[in-house]
């Protein structure tokens, strides 16, 4: 394995950061950090898209990355509004304490 980055290097890096984001979503209980980890996973997927886009010399992957970014922006806006609302109701952003729908 040489130092020269190849397709596999980028893909394994993307898989690694995706897994780290996945651990974060499952382990952290702070809603804000949960959202950050979701953004991290979206970014890793974007990196995979762009890597394949460069590998195949095809711009479609970059267009998809652009769309993913726009969706992430929309998701962050709505998600943070929900976090704000939850904090007003519970005085906490711990997602384990959000159990209204269970009752």
């Amino acid at each position, binding site marked *: 394995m040489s130092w020269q*980055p190849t397709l*596999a290097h980028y893909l394994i890096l993307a898989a690694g950061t*995706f897994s780290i984001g996945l651990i974060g979503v*499952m382990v952290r209980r702070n809603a804000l950090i949960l959202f950050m980890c979701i953004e991290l996973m979206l*970014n890793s997927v974007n990196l995979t898209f762009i890597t394949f886009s460069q590998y195949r010399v095809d*711009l479609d992957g970059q267009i998809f990355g652009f769309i993913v*970014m726009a969706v992430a922006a*929309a998701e962050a806006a709505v998600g*943070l509004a929900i976090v704000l609302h939850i904090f007003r109701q519970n005085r906490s952003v711990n997602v384990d304490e959000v159990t209204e729908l269970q009752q």
Partner: protein
Amino acid sequence: MGVWEPLFFWLFAVGAVATSVGVLFIKNPLYAALSLIGDFLCFAGLYVLLSAHFLAVTQVLVYTGAIMILFVFIIMLLNLNEQELGERQFRLHHILAYLTAGIVFALAVSAIAPLVDQQQVATERQRVQQQAQNADGDEASEGFRVESPVPGLYAAVNEPAINRDFRAQIQSWEDGTATPADEKYRTYDPDRSFEVPPVLRASEAQAQGGTSSMFGTVEPISILLVNRFVVPFELIAVLLLAAIFGAVVIAKKRL
């Protein structure tokens, strides 16, 4: 190629992994957000290495410039104390979480790993070529057979022989006489030279880099966005409008 590409790749890759682990373990959400900003900047650097210049700029503007500012605003607005953060004591399901993520990573690596082994890639290519040649001799009956990697997972596909034009096209991509991007972007002139500023002009080969020098810049992406991808582009506009309304309605104290 040269020495700079690996250097910057490893710099950004190590930076990205380190800051991701930071987001995972830092308790204070403000420091976690700062770590995530560093992570996004590292990703922007990787996008530049992948000649996705427009997306790298968009990454810095949209992610670190807009989304993370929103995060930091919310964190400062809530002004959480120690108890409101949500305690993070170790629980049994954390082991399961690490295990699941490890399995996901292992599956991904096992899918990617054959790409690392250049020898295997070469033999695989030879095998496919051999099969294609066999199909040539016995066009109708033999065909192009794709075996299932896991026995019994799905039926072996016996497609009809690939047509000659397609193989010739693949061959021309391999030889370098043509690229997959040919005839795809008719609306912009591929012969038009792209002026690289003198400082950035490292070498002719590096500027080309196997791809068109315009690849990933604003012009081809904008042409694609308003031609082939005009419907998703407009849908993004609708989605963002809906998100604005949704955020205002949800965050408002009472309507």
